[in-house]
């Protein structure tokens, strides 16, 4: 029998972790197996399910398939003290940090806009101490935190982070494996308080379909305690039942269904509409200063009542048609599935 012991422990804060028994209890008490009509407004979903101090995680990846409608609503409702999963979070986290909603982040990738450069506002907040990075991890690390959370187990073993400062600032532990006797990183599970995911279509109970790559939303949706699903379209329940193999998220994981066409704007919705580079650039330009941040938030969020009104501000249907057309140049349509 090989001995097993803890070789080293990361010093990052362990956020979003639940003892699996405690989480099962929470699920039993709070997650309904009843097929109920969960349609509500973004306003209602955010006010009902997001509380100060919550650990939130947004679906998609980078500027792709992000539930921006909910992000804007969180800002509009001035939610505070949120902890966010920086799981390749870009525009969403930048705005939330800039608006003062999020002040703690567990970082895999944050404070950047991929090719477009660094995020001005959220980076400034970290550099001035307004926003704190509580722990570091990697993209696979997040994927596996959610996988463990979905599976109801306390951790997933892996071979990443070893030998690095990323490990030292993480909440993971290194043990020697009882099967191979080699060092192995244990990635703790994560059950976010609230997951926020934008999908292509969903029925009123919450049975949701995602087109194209799932990214890590299968695991994230299953692991989240509360799950807000925004959808391009609410589809009849009967359609779910005609192609059950297309369901990526079954209804019993879902707490709110919010119909928001173009709900990912200015991010891409794969096979639906392209990135709005004009709008992203406007934000990147304005967010260079605190005054600019204020101007942006005032113009596009605080003085706006609904996502529809926002869509009119960014250029309305004409702009949206252009974004649709740009996405279509890839030559396929979501309906192809």
């Amino acid at each position: 029998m090989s001995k097993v012991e803890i070789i080293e422990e990361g010093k990052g804060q362990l956020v979003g972790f639940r003892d699996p028994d405690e989480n099962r209890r929470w699920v039993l008490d709070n997650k309904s197996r009843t097929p109920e009509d969960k349609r509500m407004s973004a306003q209602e979903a955010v006010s009902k399910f997001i509380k100060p101090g919550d650990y939130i995680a947004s679906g998609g990846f980078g500027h792709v398939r992000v539930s921006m409608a909910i992000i804007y609503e969180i800002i509009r409702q001035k939610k505070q003290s949120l902890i966010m999963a920086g799981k390749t979070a870009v525009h969403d986290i930048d705005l939330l940090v800039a608006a003062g909603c999020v002040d703690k982040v567990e970082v895999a990738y944050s404070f950047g806009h991929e090719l477009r450069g660094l995020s001005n506002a959220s980076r400034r907040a970290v550099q001035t101490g307004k926003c704190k990075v509580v722990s570091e991890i990697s993209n696979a690390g997040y994927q596996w935190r959610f996988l463990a959370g979905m599976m109801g187990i306390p951790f997933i073993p892996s071979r990443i982070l070893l030998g690095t400062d990323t490990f030292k600032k993480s909440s993971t532990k290194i043990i020697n494996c009882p099967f191979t006797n080699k060092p192995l990183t244990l990635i703790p599970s994560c059950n976010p308080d609230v997951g926020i995911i934008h999908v292509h279509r969903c029925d009123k109970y919450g049975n949701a379909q995602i087109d194209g790559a799932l990214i890590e939303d299968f695991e994230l949706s299953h692991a989240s305690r509360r799950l807000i699903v925004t959808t391009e379209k609410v589809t009849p329940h009967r359609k779910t039942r005609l192609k059950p193999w297309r369901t990526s998220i079954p209804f019993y994981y879902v707490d709110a269904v919010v119909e928001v066409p173009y709900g990912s704007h200015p991010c891409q919705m794969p096979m639906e509409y392209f990135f709005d580079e004009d709008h992203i650039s406007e934000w990147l330009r304005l967010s260079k200063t605190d005054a600019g941040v204020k101007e942006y938030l005032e113009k596009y969020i605080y003085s706006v009542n609904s996502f529809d009104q926002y869509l009119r501000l960014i250029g309305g249907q004409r702009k949206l048609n252009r974004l649709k057309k740009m996405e279509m140049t890839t030559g396929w349509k979501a309906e192809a599935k």
Partner: protein
Amino acid sequence: MPKKTVNYNQVELMASVAAKLLEDNKSVLVGTGLPVLAAMLAQQSNAPNILIMYEAGGVGSQASVVPVSVGESRTFYHGIAASSMHDVMSALQGGFVDYGFLGAAQIDMYGNINTTVIGDYDTPKVRLPGSGGANDAGSLCFKTIILMKQDIKRFVKKLDFLTTPGYLTGPGAREKAGLPKNTGPYRVISQLGVYGFDSDTKKMMLLSTHPNVSIEEIKENCSFELTIPVNVETSEEPTDQELKILRQIDPMKIVIGK
């Protein structure tokens, strides 16, 4: 070497050099920007069967234009799979991915890289995005290729933060830490030259200088002691055909133009 009119920029040169490193019929995990550009160039020139993988789930894309993000629809356009991070990260850890293409803000002599922070961690001078998929690729791909800008603040003696493992502290250190066998940095490509790693010492070693770059210039832009062998080649310039492809792949110059 016969001089040629310089009709390309540094990004195009780096992409062309990087593309030539990729063998055909191998798999490569690519990050946004220059890595994608290089892999797509390889796919359209020397390595038509290179299998391009994106961490968000796109595999084998045949997009003709560079994806803006590693999660966007072009990453699986006419691909052979549009699956998930679970699928792709499992392939990485399982040993199915030959090359990993990364960027970096700082690198040290052993190929360890920093993309997390410049300055002190708790009071950062510049907070960078963090690992993203870099630690995963650097830990799990067989051969890592790093594409980055070179100067004395980037090729450093000591990283401000070790985000992604190179050879850590030298020979045997990766295995001792528990990282998979036979993995590690393979090449570093900067705007000045191409580097490999000495098989005994695991220290960075100059392999070729780019056209019109002197060894002196290489040394001046590196803070650590670089191994410089007797024979140093000159990197090949991009061909007209390669430049044509690059400009087709990135018509808006979102990568090239930077």
